[in-house]
């Protein structure tokens, strides 16, 4: 998948999840749908396209999170590399494997972001570890929705990877 397509899709998903959460529970639970794109890139994209695409998706997450920029971008690249390593070691191409990888990835991503934020925030505004419960629910919901997004991402991929008709004429 082209990095710019990943970026546009992340923007769309971020806007979609903000609207969805408004109508479903008003934010009682949170979602991290753009991370699904990063995991997908880790499993399917090339090194350069995937890393750049993941950084762009991370930038969107950074923008939407509203805090100082950079952390989510960097963590998205880490998640991309982790997904790549996991994809090389285990079979996670199916829907279930992808959902589990997305769920675990989302939780670890949130956990590391939380720990980093705790490390750099002044003591009075440090995020509490009680937020781990919310992170866990976020990971569960994101993992559950990820197979649907995988279908969408595969379709988008197919658009870019369609065989050039001129090649058929040469055969």
């Amino acid at each position, binding site marked *: 998948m082209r990095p710019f397509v990943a970026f546009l899709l992340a*923007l769309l998903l*971020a*806007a*979609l999840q*903000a*609207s*969805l*959460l*408004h*109508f479903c*529970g*008003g*934010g*009682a639970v*949170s979602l*991290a749908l753009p991370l699904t794109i990063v995991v997908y890139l880790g499993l399917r994209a090339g*090194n*350069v396209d995937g*890393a*750049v695409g*993941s*950084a762009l998706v*991370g*930038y*969107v997450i*950074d*923008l*939407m*999170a*509203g*805090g*100082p*920029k*950079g*952390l*989510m*971008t*960097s963590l998205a*690249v*880490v998640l991309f*590399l982790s997904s790549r390593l996991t994809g090389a070691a285990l079979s996670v191409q199916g829907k279930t494997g992808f959902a589990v990888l997305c769920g675990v990835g989302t939780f670890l*991503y*949130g956990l590391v*972001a*939380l720990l*980093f*934020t705790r490390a*750099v*925030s*002044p003591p*009075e*505004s*440090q*995020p*509490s570890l*009680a*937020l781990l419960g*919310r*992170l866990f629910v*976020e990971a569960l919901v994101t993992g559950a929705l990820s197979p649907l997004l995988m279908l969408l991402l595969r379709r988008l991929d197919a658009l870019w990877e369609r065989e050039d008709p001129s090649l058929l004429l040469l055969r």
Partner: protein
Amino acid sequence: MVGLLKRYRELILVAVLLVVPLGFYFAHAKHPSERSRLDRVILTVTGPIEKGLSFVITGALEAFQGYVALRHAHERAFELQKELMRLELDRSELERVKEENERLRRLLGFAQAAPERRLLGARVIGVRLDPKGLQLLTLDRGERDGIAPMMPVVVGQGVVGRVHTTTPTTADVLVLSDRNSSIAVRIERSRARANVRGTGAPDSCRLEYALRSDDMNDGDLLVTAGTDGVFPRGLPVGKIEDLKKGGQGLYQSAQVKPAVDVTKLEEVLVLLEVERPEEAPRTAAAPGAGGDKP
């Protein structure tokens, strides 16, 4: 050298993408987040997308409800039941209108209680109560409507938060339960002063800087003190829960149940202009530094 760079270019690119953003984060982590022109352009683009999605989802929900109702009526195939169904729908629609009316009446009551305040009504179009980032609500009004950062956002029941960032057409509100939100409050009963700080969970805050000697109990109502340069005085913030007075130390601690459930908001009021108490400082508090410390 060039050969080496070419050979390891992928590795170098990944390393750059890892390290540069992290360096940027550490360089800016202690300061309030600022948005560049590019950030603002991107957020300005997402605003209409959110508005459009909100419109589509509302339309789809209404259409789905209509479809279900219609199918149900066909299945029963009795004119009387169809009529009953229609009346049911009408009634639920009326209920919805009545509830909306109630909410708007409370907002109007709030507006009429202090006519010197200049208020702007806005609808919530997006929710980002993300445990990893800030707790934000997106409003369908922005700079073009006169909204600027640090403006208080309220509903009839009390404080929602303050405007964090704006684009020409939308505004992000930092809700009171965000960990960077700190509001100067008084106990309504005893007038004792303290701060209410968010915890990052939408349904809880904590009480800070409440002197051990001050008179406060579980269930006491907290109202804004008006001394933080953001909120006017007297707006409900929440109620004290689980008050703990330790054997020693200067302060007592407590949980605060916010007066407003930020997960159930549909319309809010932005206070464009508020009356200021005489003791209010002139400068607005920065994120994470708001509130007074008695």
